[in-house]
């Protein structure tokens, strides 16, 4: 019994030790590479540094119409952000008429915000480089099919212009369309200074007329995909609504990182102090609780990193609370064991009945808090949500480690040590 228990205990210690080592230092065996935990946790903007902006649509639209407008706007912003080459942007519709854009690790955040929120960056330029139309004049751009010279239905891009655009476009087409040289009839479509299409107006002699109804068609040797791409680009050049900056936050990368580093350091120091405290007060069970706490910490950090939960400052607060509660579950159990010992029970039966009797309060208190965590996650926004998710993970981890791991470890040690010496169990 003693030898068997000792071997299992040493094995468990080795696993915990190895896991801790990997978590702190990372690991590389052959092709398998595990990064250290500190770098593999996704950080929220307040820790990673970056920018977020909440934009509000300035529109009277309601209901379905508004929903459609917002979805359209979101797609356009996504395209613009893609153009910035930012990894893992987070773009979401918030409430009814707001869009939240989160960009991590941007060098010039202010510039990024301006680029995202601009109503129009698309320009139609005549051969003399006068701007004829801008993106805001384009009401819609879509793929359509039109018979070409060979009599086949071919994909084209159809444009629909607003009032002002229609007028300007009528003027320019009237001016240009009579020119014999094709080069003089080109209207360049420019997005962010780059020509994305250079269609020429069709010469009057071949049947072209000035375009006065605000509807134009770009033909070319497109396949559907190409036409679609061009239509999207043109649409992206014009947001369907004016966006008003509602909230912006820019956090320099060094500041966020400092907050993270210091929070980790604080967490480490706090854990060590808690280990010392628990060991002094509860002796052997205190050491067991410390081991459980290490596993608990590993468990939550790995869960957070593998679920891809973005850790924020309020999230760290949630974690600290859950550490407090993880300790609490252990304390509850050990106090019960101590009471049982003082009643004169043997260590083995005291450990057994102590766990059993503490179970209801551990479960009831944790589930009540878990309910709060779930509600906060479900109904909350932004920081409230982040807090909720870490609280949920923390409580589940704390219940598992305190109820199962602590009990198992304590059972092993009771099997190894002298059954009569109650002092080392905190009595």
């Amino acid at each position: 019994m003693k030898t068997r228990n000792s071997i299992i205990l040493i094995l468990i210690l080795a696993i915990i030790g190895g896991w801790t080592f990997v978590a702190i230092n990372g690991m590389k065996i052959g092709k398998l590479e595990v990064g250290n935990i500190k770098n593999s946790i996704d950080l929220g903007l307040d820790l990673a540094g970056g920018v977020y902006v909440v934009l509000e649509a300035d529109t009277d639209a309601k209901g379905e119409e508004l929903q459609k407008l917002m979805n359209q706007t979101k797609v356009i912003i996504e395209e613009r952000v893609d153009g910035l080459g930012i990894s893992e942007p987070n773009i979401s519709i918030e409430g009814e008429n707001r869009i939240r854009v989160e960009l991590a690790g941007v060098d010039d955040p202010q510039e990024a915000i301006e680029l995202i929120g601009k109503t129009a960056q698309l320009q139609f330029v005549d051969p003399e480089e006068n701007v004829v139309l801008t993106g805001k004049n384009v009401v819609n751009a879509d793929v359509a099919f039109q018979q070409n010279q060979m009599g086949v239905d071919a994909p084209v891009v159809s444009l629909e212009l607003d009032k002002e655009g229609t007028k300007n476009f009528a003027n320019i087409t009237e001016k240009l369309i009579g020119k014999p040289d094709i080069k003089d009839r080109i209207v360049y479509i420019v997005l962010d200074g780059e020509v994305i299409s250079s269609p020429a107006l069709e010469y009057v002699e071949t049947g072209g007329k000035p375009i006065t109804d605000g509807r134009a068609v770009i033909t070319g040797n497109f396949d559907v995909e190409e036409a679609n791409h061009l239509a999207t680009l043109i649409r992206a050049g014009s947001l369907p609504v004016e966006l008003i900056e509602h909230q912006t936050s820019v956090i320099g990368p060094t500041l966020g990182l400092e907050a993270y580093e210091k929070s980790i350091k604080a967490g480490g120091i706090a854990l060590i102090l808690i280990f010392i405290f628990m060991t002094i007060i509860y002796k052997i069970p205190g050491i067991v609780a410390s081991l459980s706490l290490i596993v608990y910490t590993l468990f939550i950090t790995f869960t957070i990193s593998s679920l891809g939960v973005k850790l924020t400052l309020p999230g760290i607060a949630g974690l600290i609370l859950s550490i407090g509660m993880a300790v609490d579950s252990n304390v509850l159990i050990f106090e019960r064991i101590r009471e049982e010992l003082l009643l004169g029970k043997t260590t083995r039966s005291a450990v057994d009945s102590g766990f059993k009797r503490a179970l209801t309060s551990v479960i009831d208190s944790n589930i009540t808090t878990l309910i709060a965590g779930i509600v906060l996650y479900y109904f909350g926004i932004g920081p409230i949500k982040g807090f909720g998710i870490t609280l949920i993970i923390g409580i589940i981890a704390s219940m598992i480690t305190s109820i199962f791991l602590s009990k198992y470890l304590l059972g092993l040690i009771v099997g190894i040590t002298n059954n009569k010496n109650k002092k080392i169990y905190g009595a």
Partner: protein
Amino acid sequence: MDIIKNKKIYLMISLIIIALGLVMFIINGFNYGIEFTGGTLIQINAGKFISVDEAKNIVKEFDENASIIHGGSNKEELIIKSTKDLSNNDVNRLIDKFQKEHKINKKSVQAEKVGPSMGKEIKNKAILSILISTIAMLIYITFRFEFKFGLAAVIALAHDMLITISVYTIFKLPVNSSFIAAILTILGYSINDTIVIFDRIREELRLNPKESLDNVVNNGINHCLRRTINTTITTIIALVVLYIVGVEDVKILALPLLVGIISGTYSSIFIASPVWYDLKKYKRKTA
């Protein structure tokens, strides 16, 4: 410890703090952070001391009434707070000027802009989530214990929140998103703490059905006392370390949490159980 005998004294201590908080609230109101008022906050870690006058020289062009204070352990941080909703362009120019004149690193700058309706929205969401979770917890406790335990736990919870809010008004702490995180944490901790004691009272009731209610409550609390104190100590250890080691934002969070945790412990012993006792007695009298 005879809690029931002195229950009025304990309640008075809490009421005095809450009353003080209320008075300070009437005099000063909340020190709202820009999350709630709307405005612009720029935080610059200059790495050296820049005097308020020097900073004001740059800032006055954008907002003459902006408040400028120092932060960080060596006053190397500048915190500029304006109630104006400065444009991005303005913020950029302001930072550029600081860079030119004081050689600050642009990467050590933090800027935040909030429209005035945003704070209201977060506040509403927070209040809504707290209400819903309170109701949900009340239902669970009623199901597992009884309604009176649930009611007493919720009253203790309200007590902790009021105490924490009072501390915010008394010490003029900024009411911002950390405040919301703190209130939420207290919500979780307070209930947890209270339930543990109620669990013990429930057990005492079952084991000694003939015992007087006074003794049942006192025994329940006293049996849990070591646990309550030890748990609180470990949580406080974590928070104190966080306060000492952490950055400014974390400190702002750690302080109210500390207050809330202490209040949560206090209320679970001195408020929740006496309230439950009174609710029980009231029923016995009328029955």
